[in-house]
């Protein structure tokens, strides 16, 4: 192996270069998903009118896409390059739910799929709801105090 080639390979596989490459790739994929989401949002909004309903629909569409791509085995191939670019949008959430469900089918549909489907969804829902309750208590108390004053 030539010295130059060796140097290039070391650079290519060094942690520093890998971190940079991952960061760029996740940015590109995250941008594509959210940019195309914005286009879909505008199209839906011109039909439905209501912005919030349209935003919810966009989220549902991406959950559907993430899950379908996981089912067909395509998601992993994209995610290998995209990293957090497909993880952070709701596609990552639906991918986690679907892949855990599919992998646990052999353990039984009722108890296998039924429990493993929550491997990632469980923590996400639990801590999302828990944060919501903390916020709710603070918001309710603040409202109560404001009404008393």
């Amino acid at each position: 192996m030539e010295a130059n080639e060796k140097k290039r390979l070391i650079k290519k596989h060094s942690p520093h270069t890998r971190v940079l490459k991952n960061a760029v790739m996740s940015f590109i994929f995250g941008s594509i998903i959210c940019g195309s989401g914005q286009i879909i949002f505008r199209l839906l909004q011109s039909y439905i009118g209501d912005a919030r309903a349209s935003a919810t629909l966009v989220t549902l569409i991406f959950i559907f896409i993430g899950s379908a791509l996981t089912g067909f085995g395509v998601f992993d191939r994209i995610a290998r390059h995209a990293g957090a670019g497909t993880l952070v949008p709701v596609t990552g959430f639906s991918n986690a739910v679907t892949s855990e469900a599919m992998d646990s089918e052999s353990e039984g549909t009722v108890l296998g799929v039924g429990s493993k489907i929550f491997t990632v969804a469980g923590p996400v829902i639990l801590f999302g709801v828990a944060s919501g309750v903390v916020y709710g208590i603070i918001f309710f108390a603040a409202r109560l105090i404001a009404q008393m004053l």
Partner: protein
Amino acid sequence: MQAIYEIILAALMGGALCTVAQLLIDLTSLTPARILVLYVSLGVLVYAVGLYDLLLPIFGMGISIPLIGFGAAIGRGVRETIISEGAIGILSGGLSAAAAGVTLALIMGLLSALIFKPRSKRM
């Protein structure tokens, strides 16, 4: 022109949120599953302090599609149910707001498990 500007802003914000997550995965010991939990909780916080409603008109789907939007929906559900129905909103607001997304993800997961053969795990 306005529409293109809007798409670019959404793409920039979405990309930035993903890059931060990627850096957290590569440079700290946070696993992808923990990132998801972090982003959902962060979403509730961002909504609670009023920042989400400020950023949403600017970045649109760039902040709504990442899991931050999921957390913000929980926060908004809690707040609006408390305003309309009182204290019960503390308990009922969050899951009601998240219901459509969670249910779709679960049903899709169940159907996929029944239809498709298992493939490699990601997390």
